């Protein structure tokens, strides 16, 4: 494994929307070694503060090998992300990673990459990888509204070729849910692979689609984590037949192992 605990310099930190930020961190190892779907554990506390105590897990949103850099896309939801959002360029963050297994990247048929909300982060990484490998794929992003992160939508529309966006309020792309868009696409591509990350209700809706059409799928899960490396057994998730540990068995799982 390539994982390592290191201080990474903040190369860039930008607001993408009212509560969403994109941060670019320097690390040769992660830029070169990370796979789509992997994550890092970031220590957000400043100075000698011991609160917040735990590191925060974030998916690698994409890498930039030319700058020895990787990106994290995050939403401010609590104390940790709020402190993170105040970090300035040139400061350093302690980063443990890359962690976890990552998505399957050796599938030859059509794949559909489905991201919902901030679950789009690892999906973007995967889409960029597939694009550079010229593998057959389509990236479908479902958001609430373009207003949530207008700057990011602009980046995505520029950088990701095979992208389709759905928004609940119709402010960008097709109005509606990502699963509706997905279903109309997979109908004609049963021998495809769906790879997805997003909120649980979205995953459950996709599970119905895959069951209906008998499609293979992979999903990425979240759980509260203390260590991110398999020490504490805190990141348990109740799969269909067994409890899985998201940080070491995942975060990417065969969808059929998780949902019925």
């Amino acid at each position, binding site marked *: 494994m390539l994982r390592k605990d290191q201080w990474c310099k903040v190369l860039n930190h930008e607001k993408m929307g009212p509560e969403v930020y994109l941060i670019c961190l320097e690390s040769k190892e992660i830029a070169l070694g990370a796979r789509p779907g992997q994550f890092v554990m970031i220590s957000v506390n400043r100075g000698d503060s011991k609160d917040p105590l735990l590191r925060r897990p974030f998916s690698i949103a994409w890498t930039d090998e030319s700058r020895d850099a990787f990106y994290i896309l995050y939403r401010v939801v609590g104390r940790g992300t709020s402190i993170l959002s105040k970090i300035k360029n040139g400061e350093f963050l302690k980063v*443990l990673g890359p962690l976890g297994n990552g998505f399957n990247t050796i599938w030859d048929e059509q794949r559909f990459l489905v991201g919902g909300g901030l679950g789009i982060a690892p999906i973007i990484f995967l889409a960029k990888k597939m694009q550079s490998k010229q593998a057959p794929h389509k990236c479908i992003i479902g958001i609430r509204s373009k207003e949530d992160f207008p700057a990011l939508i602009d980046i995505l529309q520029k950088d990701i070729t095979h992208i389709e966006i759905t928004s609940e309020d119709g402010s960008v792309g097709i109005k509606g849910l990502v699963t509706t868009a997905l279903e109309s696409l997979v109908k004609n591509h049963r021998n495809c692979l769906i790879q997805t990350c997003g909120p649980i209700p979205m995953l459950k809706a996709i599970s119905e689609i895959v069951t209906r059409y008998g499609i293979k799928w992979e999903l990425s899960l979240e759980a509260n984590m203390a260590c991110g490396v398999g*020490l504490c057994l805190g990141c348990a998730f109740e799969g269909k037949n067994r409890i899985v540990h998201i940080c070491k068995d995942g975060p990417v799982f065969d969808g059929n192992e998780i949902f019925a």
Partner: protein
Amino acid sequence: METKFSPDLTTTLGPISLKNPVVLASGTCGYGIELSDLVELKALGAIVVKGISLEPRPGNPPPRIIETPCGLLNAIGLENIGIDAFIEKKLPWLREQGITTIVNILGNSIDDYKRLSAILDKADGVAAIEVNISCPNVKEGGVSFGKTPEGTHAVTKAVRDETGLPLIVKLSPNVGDITVIAKAAQDAGADAVSLVNTFLAMAIDIEKKRPVLGNTFGGLSGPAIKPIALRMVWEVSRAVQIPVIGIGGITQWQDAIEFLMAGASAIQIGTGTLISPDCGKKVVDGIRDFLRQKGYKRVEELRI
């Protein structure tokens, strides 16, 4: 100005001697192997593996952890692979690596503890047994023994009768007077006591109007509990003659020095490793530097 000698970091816990007083606590370093690419485990005094029971246990339903101010609340529920799988799949690697391995055991009955000790007594590569009678995260067994001097005495004696292995009894802080429990362990033949395990605690999700943890209650660890743990170590060190291992909220070398000054012969790091895998190594270095800078030749000179 600094004296440039090399202080002696070894410490003895009754029958065992450790190369330094820094030990990784049970439940926070897996079975060792999970950490092996991130830290050099041999640089530590010892590691205590995740609590082992006779049968594998699935643990508690999620969510199992939540952060609190300067603390970690967990209800893992002693998920573990069971003693047989441990001995077959985990112990050999630890032995080959030359890692001093302490095995933390947990049972539902005195008989469970007896059988676990008998099995470990025959295994190869066990430096000591740490008897967990203090985990707040399982409903039956375990913790109830640790609540009374009688229960503590009974479990300790049962294990003592089964094995000549060095025997550490791990105490719960969820008691009125921890010195009474420590003395019971000593009287029943413990070679050392380790304290503290986690504090029974909880958190409520105000949006969902229900306890955060799947198990309702969990155990609180981390810097938040350090001042209480330190007081208990101070008290127990003055109440018993056997060595005391200090545990609770140690995340930096200064914390370790406080526990060693309070009377501990060694310390364990739990949550600290979860936050930073190299926490233990840094604590070892920090203790060495502090001893050198202050001119102490041995760890035990720190004791107040």
